[in-house]
C-alpha cells in the first residue's frame, strides 16, 4: 500500500500537476492570443478599461455580490477561499514540495487548516444542495456539474480523515491513497472542465467587451462569404 501511495504522490502527481499547468497555460495562451487578434482586427480599438477592471475586481473579490444573493454568494465565496488556501498552504503539502524540489513557503497552522477543510466540505455540501434544489440552477446543471463538485470535495473529505485518524473508520493507507488520487484527479480535471474558470475568470469581463469588437466590414465580409452581396433585404 505504501508503494501505491508513493506512486500516487510521485509520478502520478507529477503527471497530473504538469498536465494541469500545461493545460491551463494553453487556455490562457489561446485566449490571450485570440483576444489580441480580435482587437488587432477590430475597427474600433477603444476599450472601457476602467469599467472592465472594476468589474473584474468586483468578481475576483465579490464582496458586493454578497448583498445581492447573500446565501449563495457567501457560500460560494467561502468555498472558493477554502479550496484555494488549504491545498497550497497546508504544512503537509509544503513538506512534499520541500522533499522533492527543496522549495517551500510559510504554512497555515494545522488548526486553521482543519477549520478551512471542514468549511470546504460544508460549503461543498451546501452548493450541492443548492444545485439540486434551486430551480434555475438544477435546470441548467449537466451531470458534469454535479460530478465536478463531488470530485473537488473528495480530497477534502479524505484529507480531513487522514489528519484525524481517530475519526477515520477506514485504514489510514487506503484513505491516504484515495486522498492523493482524488487530488490528482482534480488537477487533471482543471483544464478539461469548467474548473478552467480558475484561470479564465480574471479575463471574462474583458472578453465580454472584446466580443463586441468586430473587424472592419465584418458584416459585408460575411455577406460575401455567403454569396449574399446582391441579395435584397
Amino acid at each position, binding site marked *: 500500500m505504501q508503494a501505491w501511495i508513493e506512486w500516487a504522490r510521485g509520478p502520478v502527481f507529477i503527471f497530473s500537476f504538469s498536465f494541469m499547468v500545461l493545460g491551463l497555460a494553453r487556455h490562457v495562451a489561446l485566449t490571450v492570443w485570440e483576444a489580441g487578434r480580435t482587437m488587432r482586427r477590430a475597427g474600433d480599438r477603444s476599450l472601457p478599461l476602467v469599467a472592465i477592471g472594476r468589474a473584474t475586481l468586483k468578481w475576483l473579490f465579490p464582496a458586493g455580490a454578497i448583498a445581492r444573493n447573500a446565501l449563495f454568494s457567501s457560500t460560494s465565496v467561502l468555498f472558493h477561499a477554502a479550496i484555494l488556501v488549504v491545498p497550497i498552504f497546508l504544512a503537509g503539502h509544503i513538506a512534499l514540495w520541500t522533499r522533492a524540489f527543496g522549495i517551500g513557503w510559510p504554512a497555515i497552522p494545522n488548526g486553521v487548516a482543519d477549520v478551512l477543510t471542514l468549511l470546504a466540505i460544508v460549503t461543498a455540501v451546501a452548493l450541492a444542495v443548492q444545485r439540486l434544489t434551486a430551480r434555475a440552477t438544477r435546470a*441548467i446543471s449537466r451531470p458534469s456539474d454535479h460530478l465536478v463538485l463531488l470530485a473537488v470535495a473528495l480530497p477534502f473529505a479524505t484529507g480531513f480523515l487522514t489528519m484525524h485518524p481517530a475519526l477515520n473508520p477506514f485504514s489510514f493507507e487506503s484513505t491516504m491513497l484515495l486522498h492523493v488520487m482524488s487530488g490528482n484527479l482534480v488537477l487533471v480535471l482543471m483544464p478539461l472542465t469548467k474548473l478552467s474558470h480558475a484561470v*479564465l475568470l480574471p*479575463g471574462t469581463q474583458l472578453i465580454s467587451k472584446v466580443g463586441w469588437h468586430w473587424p472592419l466590414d465584418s458584416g459585408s465580409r460575411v455577406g460575401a462569404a455567403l454569396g449574399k452581396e446582391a441579395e435584397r433585404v
Partner: protein
Amino acid sequence: MTDPKAKFGYYVEKRTLEATDRPRRFLEAFAAVLEHSSYHLPLDVYSRAGARCGQCAADCQLYQSTGEDRDIPCHRSELLMRIYRRYFTPAGALAARLGDGFVLTDEYLDGMGEAYYRCTACRRCKLTCPLGIDHGLITHLARWLLAEIDVVPKALVVATREQLEGVGNTSAIPVPALKDTCEFLEEELQENFNVEVKFPIDVEGAEYVFFPAVSDYLLEPDTLMGNAAVMHVTGGSWTIGTGNYDGINYGLFYSDRMMERIVKNEVAEVRRLKGRKILIGECGHATRSAWFVPTFCGPDAPEVVNFMQYTAKALREGRLPLKRDKIAERVTYHDPCNIARAGRITEEPREILRAICSDFVEMTPNRTENYCCGGGGGTVSVDEIRAFRTGPMGRRKAEQIRATGATYLVAPCANCKKQLREICEDNGLDQVQVVGLHDLVLKVLDFGAASGEARDGGPAADEVSRLAKADARQSAEHVRRCTEGGEAPRWLGATTENTAGI
C-alpha cells in the same frame, strides 16, 4: 415536423416556409461568421468556463415572472453554444463520435427562433454572472444566424427593407413630407412660444447631422420641437439631411450585415453634408448602434453624440436658459438599456431633469441595473406579441413605474416610449404620461424677451403639447395629401404597417 407558420407566423416570412435545408444553411452562416467576425472568442471562453451556477436567472425580468426553464438566460444561451461546441470544436466532434447524439434539426432551429425572441438582449443578466457572461451578445449572434435562414420578425425586415431599399427610412416618410413636417413644427413653435426656431435642412458644413428615430416625425412632435428649441437657444450648428434622416437601426436586433449597411449610410450622409458629428435623437438603440460607427467604418469616422449629452453639456456650461418655474408634477426616468446598461449615458438626463423638475423621483433599481422596458431587441415592433410584452415581460417595469407614483415617465427612446405606453395601458397605469426628455425641456425653456407674450399669456404648456400632437396628426394627413402621386398612399400604407414597429 412542426408547422412553422402556425407557430411562429409573426416572425417567419413567407419565403422561409418553402425553404429546406435550414440546418445546413445555418451552419454555413455560423462558419462564415466565426471566420469573419469576432464571436469565436466569447463563445469559446464562455463554453470552457461557464459555471452553470444559475445566478443569472435572478436578474432577468422575464424569468422572474414566468419561472420557466426556457427563460433562464444560461439555458437559452446554451442552445447556441451547444451547436458551437458540436460543430466547431474538436472536443464536440469527438463527443459526437463517442455517442453524444446531438444533431441540428429544423425543429431545434424553430425552438431557437422562439427562444431568442423572448429575450430582449437587455444584458441585465450579465450583471450577476460571476463570469460576466454576456447573454445579450449570444442573443445578438443567434438572431443574426437565424436571420440568415430567414427566421426573423417580419416587422423588422419590412422596416429595414424600406430603409435600405425603399423610401430610405423605416417609416417610409418621403422627403417632401419630411420638409412639410419640419415647417409645420416651426410654425407650431412660432405660434406657441413666439420664437423663430429653424429645422435646418441640408445645410452643408454643420457641426451636427441629426438622426432621430424617424418615427418621431410622426409620433413625437414635442420631442423634436424640444430638440430644435435647444439648438436654437444654444446656437447649435446642426442640420437634417434629406439623404438620410433615420437613426433607427434594426440591424442591431437581427443582423450585423444590415447594421453595417445602415451605419455606413449614416456616415455617408454626414460626409455628403460635410458635417462633423452624428447627432442621435432620443433613441436608445439608435445611439448604441451608432456607437458601432468606428467598428464598421474605422477610427476616422465621425464622432457620435446623443442629444441628451448635447443638452446636458449646454446646461453645465450655463448656456441653457430655463424659466424660474420648474415642472411641478412628479417625474421619473426610465433608463433605456441600450445607453445605460454599460453606464455610458446615465447622469446626463438626471442632471437635466433635476434642473427642470421640482419632484424628480428615481425608479429602483435604476441606471445600469434598471429593468428593460420589456420591448427591447426590436420586440416592441412585433404587435402580435403585445400581450407577452406588457404581461410577463413588462410586469416588473409596470411595478417599478407604479411604485414611483409619477405623472410623467420620461423615456428618451422611441422604442421604450411605445412599449411603456402599452405597458401603462395594459397594467392600469392610466395616470402616467410617457414623454421624451426634450418634451419637458421645451416646457421650461426660456426663450427670452424675444418670445414676447406667448410665455405668459399663451396657453398652458400641457394644452400646447396636446394641441401640437393633434395638429401634427392633421399635418401628417395634410402632408400625405400634398405629396405627389403614387408616393403618398405608399407612405401612409407603410406607416400603418411600420410605425407599429418603431
